């Protein structure tokens, strides 16, 4: 049995095990309900805004035209600091755009709860001992990482479907196919973005052998990553040494956030690779310890 086969087997079993555990099901349901609720609230705000606008200008408002207007692009450009990104963002259907924001903010939290005990749990229960004489540690740990990535993807996609269904029911004139297409694209970006945080959770899971410690450590690592990412983007600091801080920002997931939305692959692909590398680097740091410890 080669490494790829072992990784595939461990990943498939890990996903099956996670999907049959009460904890993962409850967390996925909570995320699903959160997506449904937040989408519903977003639609109400969107409808209220349109009605208000129609009242003020005295004629029907086409949300698509409004979103894609040069004025809106300038407003979003001001918020993002990148006109190309702003022009790309305003072409995204509102439901997909909203879901992208929701997923990128909440999936890292979901990952913290679902994945931080993925390896530490098996270490503390001893279940790992039934596997490690059958396959090598790197294949087993990578299999766990792939399994947890798949679990995260299931969560993100289920949330996207919930968001789409909510829009279909409550939002007038939702571009059904366009929204579905963009929800799928944005779900992919959310998965890549959250993978960086998954790497942190898996790092913590390999560094400790109790579930509680792993959860706490993952929270600390994620907090430091979020705080660090914000600090290196503070303008007065960046102005001191722009090149240095531009590089430092790339060490944190938030440093790649904006580029993920860029219309050109030359900007979005490095961001995706950067996020993937951050996740893998944290995973590798954890594995460095796991490879040397007694199981």
């Amino acid at each position, binding site marked *: 049995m080669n490494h790829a086969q072992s990784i595939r087997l461990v990943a498939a079993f890990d996903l099956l095990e996670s999907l049959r555990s009460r904890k993962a099901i409850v967390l996925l349901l909570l995320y699903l309900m959160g997506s449904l609720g937040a989408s519903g609230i977003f639609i109400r705000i969107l409808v209220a805004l349109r009605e208000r606008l129609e009242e003020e200008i005295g004629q029907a408002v086409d949300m698509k035209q409004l979103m894609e207007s040069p004025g809106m692009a300038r407003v979003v450009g001001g918020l993002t600091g990148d006109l190309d990104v702003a022009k790309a963002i305003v072409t995204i259907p509102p439901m997909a755009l909203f879901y992208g924001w929701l997923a990128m903010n909440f999936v890292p939290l979901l990952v913290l709860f679902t994945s931080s005990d993925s390896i530490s749990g098996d270490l503390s229960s001893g279940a790992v001992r039934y596997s490690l004489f059958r396959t090598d540690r790197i294949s087993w740990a990578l299999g766990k990482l792939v399994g947890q990535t798949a679990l995260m993807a299931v969560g993100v996609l289920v949330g996207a479907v919930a968001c789409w269904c909510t829009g279909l029911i409550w939002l007038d004139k939702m571009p059904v196919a366009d929204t579905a297409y963009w929800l799928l694209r944005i779900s992919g970006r959310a998965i890549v973005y959250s993978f960086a945080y998954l790497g942190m959770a898996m790092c913590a899971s390999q560094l400790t052998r109790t579930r509680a410690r792993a959860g706490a450590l993952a929270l600390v690592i994620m907090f430091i990553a979020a705080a660090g990412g914000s600090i290196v983007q503070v303008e007065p600091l960046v102005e001191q040494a722009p090149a240095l801080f531009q590089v430092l920002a790339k060490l944190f997931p938030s440093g790649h956030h904006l580029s993920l939305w860029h219309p050109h692959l030359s900007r979005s692909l490095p961001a995706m690779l950067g996020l993937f590398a951050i996740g893998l680097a944290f995973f590798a740091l954890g594995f460095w310890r796991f490879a040397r410890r*007694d199981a």
Partner: protein
Amino acid sequence: MSAALKIRGLRKSYGRTVALDGLDVTIPKGAICGFIGPNGAGKTTTFGIVGGLIRADSGEVDILGKGSLAPQAHPGLFTMLPQDCELSPHVSLRQLLTHYGRLQGLTAGEAQKEVDARLDEVALTDRAEARIKTLSHGMRRRVAIAQALLGSPKLVLLDEPTSGLDPELVLRMRDVFASHRGKRTLVVSSHNLLELEALCDHVIFIHGGRCTRAGTMAEVTEQGLIMRYTVEKNVDVTPLEQAQAGLEMAWEGTTLIVRGSGSWTAPTINAAVVPFLFHVSAGLLEIRRGKSLEDAYRQIHSEADG
């Protein structure tokens, strides 16, 4: 006979506590070997190191002549039953065992057949689709035994395999292990010496992280040299001792222990002693060959303690 497991100079410390202190062990292929020692002797640590779960400080482990455990070098050739480890609670017995079978290199079809055979062996066929978390402690223990016997491993380490099982299941599991005699090498760590005496053909005693005695069950229990006769009443055996050169005799309660030296064998000792005991009307109740494993353990343990 070539070795299934060879351990040389194995050392492991946990902080200041020395668990293994230069352990040397050789277990021949095809043996069912008892691994015996008091708590803290280093049995579980040894199993952990051989199974690649625990990192040794120094020393060498050679499994089936292919070096220390590497799943790529020993595909499906080595399995073990670790001590006190929980099984994944959310999946069914079949899913779990199939996963382990696949992981050690069986195809989906082979794994399916193996799982059916092993579940039958441990009497859990009717619970195959039940989730692990719904099983009793004894049932989980049997699932753990089943996973260790999956496939065609050539070396199987079993750490306290029957702890927590009722007497009927202990007997059943002993028969299961015995049915693998000759097909694979089993190393069984247990504190139940009666069980080991009935099952094993080889024994290794370990104390303070070192091997204190190793050999066949016959050698360790001196089956070729000692006979034990339990009688109703003690009698004077001086005339017999004087008549038969090379026989030493001593009473242990109502049991006469006869040790032969030189050309004496079990049948010739019987031929000399049994008629005498009938002649003096000692009331012969039981004849046993050699010492019990428990006696051997006590003796070796006290020698090791100095």
